């Protein structure tokens, strides 16, 4: 077994930087506009109807919803970047196969790409956090720690979905993934309202969604206010998300190995 060297990972990562350098302009408007619209509509607009109280952990609705949207954005970036770009790299674009003919190993190709997905999550979350700050919805400098959390959330989706996408021959599963996993999580995992408002029977489902753990962490950090009586949960949230990343990477690594060296 050849060791995974960081230099090889960075070579694989560099590919995505070059691609991004050519395409980022096309994404700039959406990545600026979308946070502004969500925060204005949900935080300010809808928020004017919501009375802060127990349901919002004592926060204004804007303060409540902003960190939720931040985490949800990381989820969306992570789950998009790990579908079409991964399948395309195997099938349409050929860049994985090109790289596999060089000293890069399948593992280096995989980890370099995941690192890029983490970077995308970081870029989008940084923009989001800056806009949240501009809306005056941050209560503590600790909020900066919401960025690593966003990266972790992004990867907790990206790594397992990369394993899934890499094992596919067609893009047919991706719409279902959006419809039945990503969108429901966006709506029901604590972004817009506390999951304690959910009927008791479905609450446990919300607790196993990675987004819920991300939203909790994100909200704790941007508000500097630990979820009531449950500060000890923080390491568990982190561990849960880390575990998803690890499982995703382990499975994806096998798939990459099988597909790029068959």
């Amino acid at each position, binding site marked *: 077994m*050849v060791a995974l060297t960081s*230099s*090889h990972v960075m*070579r*694989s990562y*560099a*590919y995505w930087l*070059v*691609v991004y350098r*050519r*395409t980022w302009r096309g994404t700039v408007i959406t990545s600026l506009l979308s946070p502004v619209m969500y925060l204005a509509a949900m935080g300010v607009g809808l928020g004017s109807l919501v009375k802060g109280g127990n349901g919002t952990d004592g926060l204004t609705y804007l303060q409540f919803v902003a960190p939720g949207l931040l985490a949800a954005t990381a989820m969306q970036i992570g789950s998009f970047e790990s579908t079409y770009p991964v399948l395309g790299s195997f099938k349409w*674009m*050929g*860049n994985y*196969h*090109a*790289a*596999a*003919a*060089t*000293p*890069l*190993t399948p593992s280096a190709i995989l980890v370099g790409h995941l690192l890029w997905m983490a970077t995308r999550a970081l870029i989008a979350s940084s923009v989001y956090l800056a806009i949240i700050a501009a809306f005056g919805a941050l209560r503590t400098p600790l909020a900066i720690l919401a960025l690593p959390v966003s990266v972790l959330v992004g990867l907790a989706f990206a790594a397992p979905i990369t394993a899934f996408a890499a094992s596919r021959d067609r893009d047919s599963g991706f719409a279902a993934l959006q419809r039945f996993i990503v969108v429901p999580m966006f709506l029901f995992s604590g972004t817009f309202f506390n999951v304690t408002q959910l009927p008791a029977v479905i609450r446990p489902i919300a607790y196993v969604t990675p987004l819920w753990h991300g939203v909790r962490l994100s909200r704790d950090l941007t508000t500097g206010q630990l979820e009531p009586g449950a500060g000890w949960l923080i390491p568990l949230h982190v561990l849960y998300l880390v575990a998803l990343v690890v499982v995703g990477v382990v499975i994806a690594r096998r798939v990459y190995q099988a597909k*790029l*060296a*068959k």
Partner: protein
Amino acid sequence: MSVDEPEPLIHARGLVKRFGDFVAVDGIDLDVMPGEAFGFLGPNGAGKSSTMRMIGCVSPPSDGVLRILGLDPRTQGPRIRAKLGVVPQLDTLDLELTVRENLLIYGRYFGLPRAVARERGDQLLDFVQLLDRADDTVEPLSGGMKRRLTIARSLINEPQLLLLDEPTTGLDPQARHVVWDRLFRLKQQGVTLVLTTHYMDEAEQLCDRLVVMDKGRIAAEGSPRDLIERYSSRDVVELRFAIGENEVNAEKLTGLGDRMEVLPDRVLLYADDGDGCLELVHDRGVVPLSVLVRRSTLEDVFLRLTGRSLVE
């Protein structure tokens, strides 16, 4: 092996590739020496690409011995690949990136410093006559240009061994000649070339030595001239008859030449003296629609060895 005897760049014994129960490469033996231009000639499905992918260390052998540049692909893949240039059967270029970016990224994969990759990249673009397109995106380039770019890309790491899987398949004749010309220059510079093809003219033009491959096995090995001498006559008389009359006429020609092949669209007579043979045809009162006397080619070798045509 003695010290001064050069080591083969590729050494294979009983090399096998299986996909499930299917045997794509069925126990082949090979030695390719430095400086050679070596070819695999065979029809679609012969197992050429499967062999090339094993040599390129992107596909582990299922069985047998394989050593590339003296190293074992099973354990030394990255080290070997660092010294190979690969032109895969299907281009794996980044269509949205520019010509130059494609080279720079590839150089990066090999760990070349930016400046080196840039300088070498431009030299290579000049070599494949694409320097004026350096800043254009790849997408709109013609098939021949893309192929030349892939060849330039494969040379960015100054490889010891260049692997080309069907370098000109799908190109129009003019584009093929441009590619051949570039490959010929590389050959003259002493680059070791290993290529696959199902074009006999490509094999004849470029290869010092080749193997005829069919159904995962090597049917024969030698220089193009050797193979033709061994498996065919000097000349071939090609006779075309009206539809459905091949068999009848062939019967009348029994015994002429060294050998006869009756194909769906023509009858071939193999003889060292083609014109003399043709006279004998006329003497027997056989009147074909058209006649061609030509030299034997690798196509005839393939037909002799396998009973089938190279290109269906």
